[in-house]
């Protein structure tokens, strides 16, 4: 790790934040950003004076506070690492949950309440709503950073609720290990908003007073906001260019509890297993750990669970290792927390200074932890340290940082390879649910030959155990059905399976309904059951709980190519050995508001043959070939090449290998002139092009369906090779599949 950048309620850079942390300052105060009348807890940790970049008003209107904080922190990280995105293959990974929610809350509530016929007045002639909505999706944060600090070789935007920032770090590390990327800028950013404050208050998860992690009087969390970014590169590359490593990202582990959408599994066994795995991955043992930066939310449930997990993972060392939570100072920064606290943990190692748990006056004796109350202090050495991050739906991630050179080279994970650990990655199942019905391998393979009505009702409940599925909203239900179909009835040993699903805009219509209700009737009418369904990673969390998958789980966001981004991400995780099997794809419920406000934006509306928008879910099982063989799974196709790019793709597509034989075909989500132009530049130009939209309907999940159809066609010998080309605004993915 050669650079870092922070924007926190304690200060707008690393040094101001660090000074406040060590002094034990608490930034939690009454919220002034918006009206908090009627909120059970009205305090939070705000970032003062978020500065937007310079530019004309119509450009600035597309910036959220989340994106603005991300820009400041990512820029600081890149400057401190002396990293220029143009001088190397640099990747960007951004985690988050709220993105432009704060900027669009009032608009969403109004759009929910007003009929579409009044849009001309409601939206304004200058397209104010249009521009504001562009700041809304998670992808916007990545896009703004790409514009300001790029061009990056790769951009990924992901969400796993409150572990998003930590998962961004892991994804970046995996890219480095592949040898395909030289350096990564990874982190998270989340701005405070009415939706999260009302929602966490509805869950009774917030303390009306500033929070007190690990204290016997703790009554809940305090929300915060901010951004944290890290620059990570291989030690060899850092030394070669004369860059001084701050600390080393030595190990990590991610997994899912598959327990409950809001509550942690009380025994902490999953978290304990992840801490053990992360330490082992670093080539270290509990005896090498000198500090833990806890998730430490100060809720009655989290702190005992986390203490139990630490005791289980660290054994007797728990009596020696100091533990603190930064949330008593900066609050719970949600999607940014994992990255901000990773940066803090790395600084603790680098500066040999422990940071405190502020607000901890009377330690809860039942937790059995060694605390650092009130203020920080110097210590002789911090050889290695653990940073925990846990998210809604039980998506947990543990990071381990160490002093540079502390981990013996032979043990460390940070040795870039010439490629991925495994090049044999298979697709072993497909599932598609939409107006076409529920499709498995045979149906997907034959799909494009038949003509199906795309206005048929989609009923996921017909395929679900309704009792087990009662908390799942419609998008999660669609996802669960497609995922289970892909995984297959004979699937065994699901324990280690992960799930990654794309979500272009998150749950816009339900968020609008939730906001309208809370604005109209007051924050106390906010539904605690609905709130967890509003985070973009909610379908992933629900699916992992429903299907009892305990592998890595998160959502990716990349507009109409979100499904492709999820499948490519799954490929990268499996190929790097991080996971044996991931079910990946996308599930999208048609959003009336997105269609109304942003409809003109999308490629398909310009197309003469545009299909109607439908509810659609599609998933494929991405699996290591060795694992597929071990369990005797049917291998439909191999993934033989994956490309991804920002921009028009003309340069990136040059790396696409030509098909090996004649029986090759190109699968496209929708008819697209841009895709045709790219294909004409490749060895695939004379092969048939098959388009999915006429048979399936239009959806942001269509790209995932195209991959499912391609795999099914190869698996049933209709084709020997297939290229799936997925494009959205200035970004694209190419996924090549071939016969086993």
């Amino acid at each position, binding site marked *: 790790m050669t650079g870092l950048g922070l924007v926190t309620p304690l200060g707008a850079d690393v040094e101001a934040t660090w000074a406040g942390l060590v002094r034990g300052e608490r930034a939690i105060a009454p919220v002034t950003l918006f009206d908090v009348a009627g909120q059970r807890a009205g305090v939070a940790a705000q970032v003062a004076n978020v500065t937007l970049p310079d530019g004309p008003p119509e450009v600035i209107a597309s910036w959220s506070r989340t994106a603005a904080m991300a820009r400041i922190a990512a820029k600081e990280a890149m400057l401190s690492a002396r990293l220029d995105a143009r001088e190397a293959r640099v990747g960007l990974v951004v985690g988050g949950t709220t993105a432009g929610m704060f900027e669009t809350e009032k608009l969403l509530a109004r759009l929910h309440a007003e009929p579409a016929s009044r849009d001309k007045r409601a939206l304004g002639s200058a397209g104010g709503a249009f521009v504001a909505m562009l700041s809304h999706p998670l992808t916007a944060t990545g896009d703004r950073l790409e514009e300001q600090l790029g061009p990056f070789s790769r951009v990924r935007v992901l969400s796993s609720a409150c572990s998003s920032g930590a998962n961004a770090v892991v994804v970046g590390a995996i890219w480095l290990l592949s040898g395909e990327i030289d350096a990564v800028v990874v982190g998270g950013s989340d701005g405070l908003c009415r939706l999260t404050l009302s929602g966490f208050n*509805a*869950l*009774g998860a917030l303390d009306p007073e500033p929070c007190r992690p690990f204290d016997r009087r703790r009554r809940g969390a305090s929300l915060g906001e901010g951004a944290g970014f890290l620059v990570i590169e291989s030690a060899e590359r850092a030394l070669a260019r004369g860059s001084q490593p701050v600390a080393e990202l030595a190990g990590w582990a991610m997994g899912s509890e598959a327990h*409950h*959408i*809001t*509550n942690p599994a009380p025994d902490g066994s999953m978290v304990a297993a992840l801490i053990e795995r992360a330490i082992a991955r670093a080539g270290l043992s509990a005896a090498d750990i000198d500090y833990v930066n806890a998730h430490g939310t100060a809720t009655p449930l989290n702190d005992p669970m986390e203490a139990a997990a630490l005791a289980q993972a660290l054994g007797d060392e728990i009596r020696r290792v100091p533990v603190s939570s930064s949330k008593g100072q900066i609050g719970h920064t949600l999607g940014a927390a994992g990255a901000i606290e990773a940066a803090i943990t790395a600084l603790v190692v680098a500066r040999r200074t422990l940071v405190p748990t502020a607000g901890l006056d009377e330690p809860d004796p039942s937790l059995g932890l060694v605390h650092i109350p009130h203020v920080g202090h110097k210590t002789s050495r911090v050889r290695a340290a653990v940073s925990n991050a846990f998210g809604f739906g039980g998506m947990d991630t543990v990071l381990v940082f160490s002093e540079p050179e502390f981990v013996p080279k032979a043990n460390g994970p940070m040795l870039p390879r010439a490629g991925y650990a495994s090049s044999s990655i298979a697709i072993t199942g497909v599932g598609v649910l939409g107006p076409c019905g529920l499709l498995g391998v045979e149906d997907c393979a034959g799909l494009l030959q038949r003509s199906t009505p795309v206005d048929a009702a989609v009923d996921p*409940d017909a395929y679900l155990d*309704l*009792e087990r599925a*009662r*908390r799942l909203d419609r998008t999660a239900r669609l996802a669960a059905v497609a995922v289970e179909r892909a995984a297959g009835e004979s699937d065994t040993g699901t324990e280690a399976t992960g799930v990654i699903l794309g979500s272009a805009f998150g749950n816009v219509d339900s968020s609008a309904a939730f906001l309208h209700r809370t604005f109209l*009737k007051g924050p*106390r*009418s*906010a*539904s*605690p*059951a609905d709130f*967890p369904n509003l985070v973009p990673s909610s379908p992933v969390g629900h699916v992992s709980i429903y299907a009892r998958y305990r592998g890595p789980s998160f959502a990716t966001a990349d507009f109409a190519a979100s499904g492709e981004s999820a499948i490519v991400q799954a490929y990268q995780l499996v190929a790097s050995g991080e996971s044996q099997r991931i079910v990946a794809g996308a599930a999208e419920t048609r959003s009336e508001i997105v269609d109304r406000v942003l409809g003109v934006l999308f490629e398909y509306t310009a197309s003469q043959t545009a299909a109607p928008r439908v509810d659609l879910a599609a998933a494929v099982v991405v699996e290591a070939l060795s694992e597929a063989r071990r369990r005797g799974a049917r291998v439909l196709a191999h993934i033989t090449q994956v490309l991804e790019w920002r921009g028009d793709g003309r340069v990136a597509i040059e790396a696409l290998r030509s098909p090996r034989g004649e029986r090759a075909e190109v699968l496209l989500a929708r008819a697209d002139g841009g895709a045709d132009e790219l294909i004409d530049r490749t060895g695939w130009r004379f092969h048939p092009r098959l388009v999915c939209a006429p048979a399936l309907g239009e959806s942001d999940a269509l790209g995932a369906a195209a991959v499912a159809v391609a795999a099914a066609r190869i698996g049933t010998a209709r084709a020997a090779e297939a290229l799936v080309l997925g494009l959205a605004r200035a970004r694209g993915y190419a996924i090549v599949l071939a016969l086993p």
Partner: protein
Amino acid sequence: MDSQRLRLQIKRLIVQELNLRGRDPETIEDDAPLFGAGLGLDSLDALQLAMSIEEKIGVSIPEGEQAREIFRSVRAIAEHVAKVRGA
């Protein structure tokens, strides 16, 4: 409103708000435990139920230990509602 009708109203609210699809409200017993072993509800359901009882029936449920007592069964909820209304 007589107590039996109030209990049925609460049962309907439970089925609707907690999305217990397929469950006939009339089959929920007055004294059956709602949480844990009984209907299998948990703390998130309790929060949702408290919010909807406040909204639909107009009676608020206190937080903490008292809520635990009130949410013991449909009968206990009905008794709490009747008590607040009678006061």
